[in-house]
């Protein structure tokens, strides 16, 4: 299985923010469409380096990762294909929450 590395700050934005396309230039929906869905469709391992940005809003994270599950991929597949790298454990824990409870984040 091939694998790709995406560094959010370098390859997407240092200021990832917003849920939908209309919420800003670096929103969660765009991140999902640009990086997450192609990897899922090709069953390609994706290493996601989260550090280096100026922070994340939960709505961005939920739309990107929870949204990937809502697109029809099972939480187990999403969790297995995405390797999350961050010094902030709370961030990784939160993303796993959204993957697990994609359609019902709370």
């Amino acid at each position: 299985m091939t694998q790709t590395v995406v560094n959010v700050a370098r390859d997407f934005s240092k200021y990832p923010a917003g849920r939908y396309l209309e919420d800003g230039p670096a929103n969660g929906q765009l991140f999902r469409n640009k990086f997450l869905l192609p990897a899922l469709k090709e069953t390609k391992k994706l290493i996601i380096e989260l550090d280096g940005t100026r922070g994340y809003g939960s709505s961005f994270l939920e739309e990107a990762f929870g949204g990937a599950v809502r697109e029809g991929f099972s939480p187990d597949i999403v969790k297995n294909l995405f390797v999350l790298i961050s010094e902030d454990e709370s961030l990784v824990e939160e993303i796993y929450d959204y993957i697990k409870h994609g359609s019902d984040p709370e």
Partner: protein
Amino acid sequence: MCYSSGNQFIAQIPTWILIVSGWYAVHYFAKERDKCKEARERLDQLILTLRAIEEKAIQFHQSTSYKGDIARTLVFDIQRIIAKLKRHPLGSFNISPNLQKELRQSITLKNFDASQFSYQPDNSLILSKVANAVDDIEDQLEKEYERIYL
């Protein structure tokens, strides 16, 4: 002569042991007191920052129109305070990642984007979640301070 000064030296040993151990004890307790004071000061600053984030979050969610600049600073502020929790002397505090996650979620998961923003009344669930998340971290910080320093 030599015999007598040797005796005097032996007789002074307990006195010197007392002096040295007394000095060590005073030095040790002063150092511990300083550590405790420094941690308290850092903790007080952190709690003030946490309360400032809470105020800003309330101001944001109770705005009559969407304030993108406040949303951006809230995201930065939350990231900064989470990073501060890992630094000396608070790095030795055991603050669960779950509490940090709840802080971020309470403020930035719902009603945080221009596309879905609405004014939140005082009794809003979002505002009460923000208050709970801030209180939970503050309680945990105080418990950890007591566990480590008192």
